[in-house]
């Protein structure tokens, strides 16, 4: 039994400070053992595709920022859909955002890839709970 909740987490966020904060919180609260960061969705997609092609272990948790230049979180998810179909795995995916927009809230609830939209700053305890609640869905 691992002492971390998940093995491998991907942080996709253009904001350096938020990536720093999330990394530290995930480590400290023993949520993810290994964490890899991307500052944009495109590089993250390329990386995921590469992993799937090589048969390498894929992340089991993804924290995805909503507002990013070029490719925002929802745009990322359109491509991610294909990746999920091909790689036949389903990481826990959370959208993490400072948005207060009701439209974003509804869109994220309607998106089947998003377990939940989490408000920044991240509340590690809440993240842990929701991962636990969803462990059977995986």
């Amino acid at each position, binding site marked *: 039994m691992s002492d971390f909740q998940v093995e491998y987490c991907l942080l996709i966020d253009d904001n350096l400070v938020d990536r720093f904060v999330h990394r530290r919180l995930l480590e400290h609260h023993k949520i993810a053992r290994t964490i890899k960061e991307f500052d944009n969705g495109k590089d993250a997609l390329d990386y995921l595709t590469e992993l799937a092609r090589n048969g390498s272990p894929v992340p089991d948790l993804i924290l995805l920022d909503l507002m990013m230049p070029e490719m925002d979180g929802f745009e990322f998810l359109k491509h991610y859909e294909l990746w999920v179909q091909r790689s036949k795995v389903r990481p826990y995916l959370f959208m993490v955002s400072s948005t207060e*927009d009701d439209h974003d809230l509804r869109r994220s609830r309607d998106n089947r890839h998003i377990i939940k939209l989490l408000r920044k*700053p991240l509340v590690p305890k809440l993240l842990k709970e929701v991962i636990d609640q969803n462990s059977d869905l995986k």
Partner: protein
Amino acid sequence: MTPRNSTKPIRILYLDDEDNNLRSFKAAFRREYEVYTANNTEDAFSIIKSQKPQVIFSDQRMPVTSGVEFFNAVRQVFPEPVRILITGFTDVNDIIDAINKGHIYRYITKPWSEAEIKVAIENAYDLYHTRRQLQEKIDDLEKTNNELNRFVYSVSHDLRAPIASVLGLVKVSQIDIKDEASIQLFDKVDQSVHKLDILVNNIIDYYKNSKATEEYLEVDVDNLVEDVLNQLHSGESRENLTLQKAVDQNARFFGDYFRVRIVLSHLIANAIKFKKPEQLRAQVDLNFEIGEDQVLIKVKDHGVGILQDHVEQIFKMFFRGKDQMAGSGLGLYIVKEALSKMGGSIDVQSSPGKGAEFHIVIPNMVQQENE
């Protein structure tokens, strides 16, 4: 008299079936005004469309269409030009009727004099000009108002991102910093930034509520409460809350989802903010009674309660109780505004030390939805 650009004379259209009348009218006024003439309504309409005259004269007696009928048709499509009827004394009843219904501005009896027409033109143009200026002012104000709202909204949104980053950094500091003095400093940073966060969120809620667009969605109470808890501001997170929920659902609940959420968010945030100092967690009882016509929501907290003197005032903008953790003074004002936009109501029963119980009534929009 209204000052106007001398290089741009007033544009006038004159409609009359007798070409002689048109010629003499044009001869009399073409030096001072830009005069267009037409001997049938079809031509008149195409001139109105292309030349946009500010003042239109029409003879009343014409073979196919009367002047009043013509003006009535013009008014539907081109409301701006000022309409003046030229007529003999014989059609008094028609004319009075047309003036009363607003089809024409005034009438001039035949035979007309040049001076009379000139005064009529100048006065009509004054009216035209004033109306136009007023309309421009209204358009300007609406535009400014919309821009201001959008500006406040986008600024608030943009402010939230760095605020959230700072709050995140403070969380990291709570993990990594052991020095007592620094811990205390970071606590103060945390408190201040929380206040800022709440203020910014209140401004966003205030803006959302000011928008008229109301959409009625089916409200799933479980989802609603989950959203409310999820969107609690950082300082008021669900860790500080014990919530008991009871739902008595006798009908489907349709309503303005986001306004309902705003109302509950603020009441629950307040319950957390105003818990008794000895309480570890705020305790809130949420009670939904969903009927066909209306939805009653009771929000009962077990916090410090509200002073009798304050009960009347808590829903006012920028009112603050004299407490340790003063908020922005916007929260309950937004609650009240949101409810009035939904056609709902709120009242509160409270005494100091005994907590507060808010009763909210919202019309259930289930019927409207089915129509």
